[in-house]
């Protein structure tokens, strides 16, 4: 049976992790490779690295980090942040990334999704969507959500479920859905929105934003129909331990990859 995936997300600036990651027994907690190894060893199913500086000058630094990660871990990983064109994607995939995620650029020019899917295959194209509640999009008693870009700062006037559907139709292989409303609040994922997006597309949906307890993960898998769940600080700060989380979810009937 296909397992639901647990994905820690690491923010990277100038080749080093940020967000005050708090790990004991690490020589250098800012070293993305060291952290990647720790997460891989404790049973993370996949990793995501976001280049939060993502300036042109820093592309080379990020690519060499991606290459070092690929040298050291044997689980899949996605990279994102500031990807503009097929040349950026080719460089990251050549460096050893398994998938890339695009966000603002896909909204600015949706045909980028078609181009990337055609050139590199849908399986490596993740369309990241940042969503925020907007009553203007409410319809028939269903809560409406709007797509935001530029790190969640700029509203686009686009409705989330229809954009997810378009990304799927254009060849995206996966949707990474972040609720800006829930992000950092630790009050639970946007379960309802996740379920609506998951039902609207034929590709996997990764839920992100709002994880605070193990029960929140159960909810988003069981009720939100998420295929994977992504979180950052609760893993970085040991508020939730991945092996423990997986045991909890498995006990509640969520298919999980357990270790030998």
């Amino acid at each position: 049976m296909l397992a639901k995936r647990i994905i820690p997300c690491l923010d990277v600036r100038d080749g080093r992790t940020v967000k005050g990651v708090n790990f004991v027994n690490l020589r250098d907690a800012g070293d993305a490779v060291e952290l990647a190894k720790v997460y891989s060893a404790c049973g993370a199913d996949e990793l995501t690295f976001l280049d939060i500086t993502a300036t042109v000058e820093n592309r080379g630094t990020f690519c060499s980090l991606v290459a070092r990660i690929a040298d050291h871990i044997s689980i899949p990983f996605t990279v994102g942040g500031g990807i503009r064109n097929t040349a950026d994607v080719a460089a990251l995939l050549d460096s050893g990334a398994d998938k890339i995620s695009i966000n603002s650029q896909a909204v600015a020019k949706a045909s980028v999704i078609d181009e990337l899917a055609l050139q590199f295959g849908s399986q490596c194209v993740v369309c990241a969507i940042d969503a925020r509640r907007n009553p203007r999009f409410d319809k028939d008693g269903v809560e409406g959500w709007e797509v935001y870009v530029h790190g969640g700062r700029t509203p686009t006037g686009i409705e989330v479920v229809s954009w997810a559907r378009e990304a799927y139709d254009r060849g995206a292989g996966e949707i990474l859905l972040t609720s800006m409303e829930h992000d950092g609040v630790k009050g639970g994922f946007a379960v309802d929105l996740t379920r609506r997006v998951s039902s609207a597309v034929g590709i996997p949906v990764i839920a992100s934003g709002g994880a605070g307890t193990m029960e929140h993960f159960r909810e988003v898998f069981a009720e939100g129909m998420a295929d994977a769940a992504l979180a950052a600080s609760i893993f970085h700060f040991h508020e939730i331990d991945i092996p423990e989380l997986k045991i909890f979810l498995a006990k509640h009937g969520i298919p999980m990859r357990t270790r030998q």
Partner: protein
Amino acid sequence: MRIAMVKYNAGNTRSVLCSLNRLGYEAEVTDDPKLLRSADKVIFPGVGEASTAMAYLREKGLDEVLIHLEQPFLGICLGMQLMCAFSEEHDTTTLGMFDVPVRKFVLPPQFKVPHMGWNTLICSEDPFFTHLKGESWCYFVHSYYVEVGPSTIATTDYGPLTFTSVLHKDNFYGCQFHPEKSAEVGTSLLKTFVEEL
């Protein structure tokens, strides 16, 4: 030990190389028939699309070379699908080491395609699996699957469907998942292939 990796327009060559390096082996990525024939082990990686990959192999004359190789040969993902007889991906005639077709997933809507993520192997007796114990979770990403046939040595379930996850006939092995991305299970299988088969 000389390991050759077939050089063609496949996407995951680097990941497989990294995985071999972690096991302490180097591999030569080549499309030179002489080097492929003289290697101790041959790995045929693959991420991509079947008809484009086959056109490339034919253009380079590699199709004839590969089917006549006699040393242990391992196809990965698309590599394994290309070792079958026929693929529904753009109705492509493939290499034919295994007389079994490759089909497109047709599943109820709650089962997403690609089949992406970690799933388990149900293994029969085979030297390839000597060192596996307990549940064998492997990482898959694919939209087409190999039917179960006489050369199937492991299967995987996805929704109502059971498909082939590992094939073996004579010197030819194929796995649908990515051993290079399958943590300790994948590493153990690659090690078995390189050191024991």
